[in-house]
């Protein structure tokens, strides 16, 4: 069986798994980073969002083999002291309720702000529509993205 070398949050990990295993399960079950969540398994809800070379992907539907040689960032890797502008805005506006989808919401928001530092409401709707929140925190997510944009100035 092949061993895959993954770089997650700047750290090297070797995982001995089936090549078809989605990156999500390698991150959660094998590497043991549980901040990235399983929500649907078919790239419909966004709870499993991580960055691959800075771009958001749905790790539940992304084979581990395709992540080799790329830079993977998970929620645990976006800041060391919980001081990323998006995290700060999320705390300031008290966005999460149950919190389960929020790792994915935050990873998508971080990626959005990288490509569009000053997003409009329509930009946010378009970028965030792939992330379901059953608690219904959308109004706060939107406000917090605008707030993070201000904090990043």
């Amino acid at each position: 069986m092949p061993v895959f070398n993954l770089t997650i949050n700047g750290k090297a990990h070797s995982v001995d798994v089936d090549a078809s295993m989605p990156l999500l399960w390698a991150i959660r079950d094998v590497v043991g980073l549980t901040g990235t969540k399983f929500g649907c398994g078919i790239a419909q809800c966004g709870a499993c969002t991580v960055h691959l070379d800075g771009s958001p992907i749905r790790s539940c539907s992304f084979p581990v083999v395709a992540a080799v040689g790329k830079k993977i960032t998970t929620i645990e890797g976006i800041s060391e002291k919980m001081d990323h502008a998006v995290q700060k805005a999320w705390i300031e506006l008290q966005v999460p309720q149950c919190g389960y989808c929020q790792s994915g919401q935050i990873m998508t928001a971080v990626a959005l702000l990288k490509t569009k530092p000053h997003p409009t409401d329509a930009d946010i709707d378009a970028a965030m529509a792939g992330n379901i929140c059953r608690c219904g925190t959308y109004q706060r997510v939107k406000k917090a993205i605008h707030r993070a944009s201000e904090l990043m100035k």
Partner: protein
Amino acid sequence: MQPTSQLDRRNFIRLSGLTGAALVLGFRSSGAEQTADAALYNLETAGSTFEVTPFVIIDKMGLITIMSNKPEMGQGTYQSIPALIAEELEVSLDKVIIKQTSGEAAYGSQTAGGSSSVRGSYNQLRKTGASAREMLVTAASQQWNVPVTECYAENASVIHKPTGKKFGYGELVETASKLEVPKNPTLKKPEDFKILGKSIQRPDIPLKVSGKAMFGMDAQVPGMVYASVERCPVFGSKLISYDDSAALKIKGVLKVVKSERVYGKNKYEGIAVVAENYWAALQGRKALKVQWDYQGFDKFNSKEYEQSLRDMAKQDGLVAHNVGDFDKTFADSGIKLEALYETPIVSHSPMEPMNCTVNWMEGNKVEVWVSTQGPNIIKKEIANSQGISQDDVKVNVMFNGGGFGRRLYGDFATEAASIARAIGKPVKMIWTREDDTQAGPFRPMTYSAMKGSLSADGKVTAFQHKVISPSINGTSNAKYDKTKVDGTMVEGISDQKYEFPNMKNAYVYSETHIPLAAWRSVTSSTLAFAHECFIDELAVKAKKDPLAFRLELMSKESDAKKVLTKIKEFSKWGSPLPKGWARGVAQYEFFAGLAAHVVEVSKKADGSIKIEKVYCVIDLGTVVNPDNVKAQVEGAVAMGITAATKDGIVFEKGQSLQTNFQNNRMLRMNEMPKVEVMILADGGAKIKGVGEPGLPPVAPAIANAIFAATGKRIRRMPFDLNKIV
């Protein structure tokens, strides 16, 4: 959430790293019997005859630990429960360690449901904090040898007013721990509150923005394996045989065993594939060859069942409420209306699919890690289904990735326990989203046959709400009595404050084998749709403004009248709106509380409807965290819109057509309207719930707004906003 071991006293003290004296206040009970009114005891003086369970621990270093006895599922109990103690104890919440209780009998009911957590604990927990504070103040006065009246507590210290001398709580615990617990401590006046009533940041949120919060899904136990269960999507089927030879050849698959999930009177068989990781378990499951005997249940479909409900609407049913003479008044009336309202079965679909980690140890001792709304429920259901003692089941309550009523049930935990027992290893069983969508239990549909009559001057003379539905209790309880009115299934319909001189409400029970469950705001989530849309129909028939019509029906003062008056003002009811926009109003009062909403919708050029804005007034009496209340109402609005306008669960050939989020759609960011919330908290004696009351008015307010915008009356949920006209 940090998983903690069972919190008996010895363990707890070890866990807290306590050495020597500490002030430990707790409740005590005799054995496994739950004591709702357990008295408060000082552990140092209480003796050891009974189990004493700590609620507040202050050690010599001044470290303060407060227990939260209600699971956190997003509703904020991880803050609101400790806040009740911290307020009276005069400590700020960021200086406190919060620990979750685990179903121990002495903590009483640890179920978070029915919007009851704060309401149910408000006085008792404040008393606990006040007792501790008074003991510390007394201890300080003794140590200084000054009158107790010269001392007061502030910021985890006791201060001697005349001299400004100060003791930290840690310096007082040794003396305090020898004192008797005051029976009637003085509670703080609301105007002196520093925590309650303030929008303080929630302590769980930093954990939830950094991936550190531990949900049931994240439990890690040494030696743990993973399981996925193949069940028959047709409820009521029996397993004939299965072939696991291909499954066992898949890399990582360790074992295949039979499982059993117990939901009330129902037992559901399954085949569990156990593997080194979850992906391997899923691949193994796909490779199973299983034969089921559907026992005829594959003939079941929603279309026919719904038609049977329509047919049953002609029956009189059981009378739930009767005032005046409805039959005669309605028969004699010249102006009358009749309408049938229909609602669907829906799923709970919390973002964290059902999962449970169980370690089955020697001597049939069991440890469980689970996202649950009620650790007591998990203990009881595992013990009962496995024939073991509840005392041998230890439950670690994790953060719930959503509850909405689904996690009030232990069915999935009984399934995980059956697997753990069969393999003798710690196992994490995870449901796929498909399992979570299709396996139930679901919110029931209700049909409502409405009748109303009006006098010539537009006053309601007779009113009837007859509910035709299956029953939540009926699908789980073997002893369900269908000769009596099912209170849950007629929830709230006779409690609205409208003054109808003649009203007769009724219930018609319909059998089903589909497992049903409480869902956020329970039956009010569907009954309010019929009730409040029909009130609108009567208003239209009477040619009156819908909000004015409602207020005219409430001559007496009531909270409902107050809420309607406020929503009128808050939403600027009657003020001009942009072209194509219109408003609708609805209110509903039920066991959990009371709220009213005004929804503004717009009609687009293509005929579709957009929900633009929702104004909400929620009546609480007393509020712990206003910002969190607003968040809960915002969330209830989102959930209400999903239930009103998305897919619902539809059965064909005995199984749910909906499988995952592509066909069981949830509201998304781009569909979320602006929500504005007003809280009424005038300090009234009755404290009302937060989590649920924001939901029932959503669907009827939308439908009433759509009528105002288009003239089209909606009497069936779900309705597609793109296909109204």
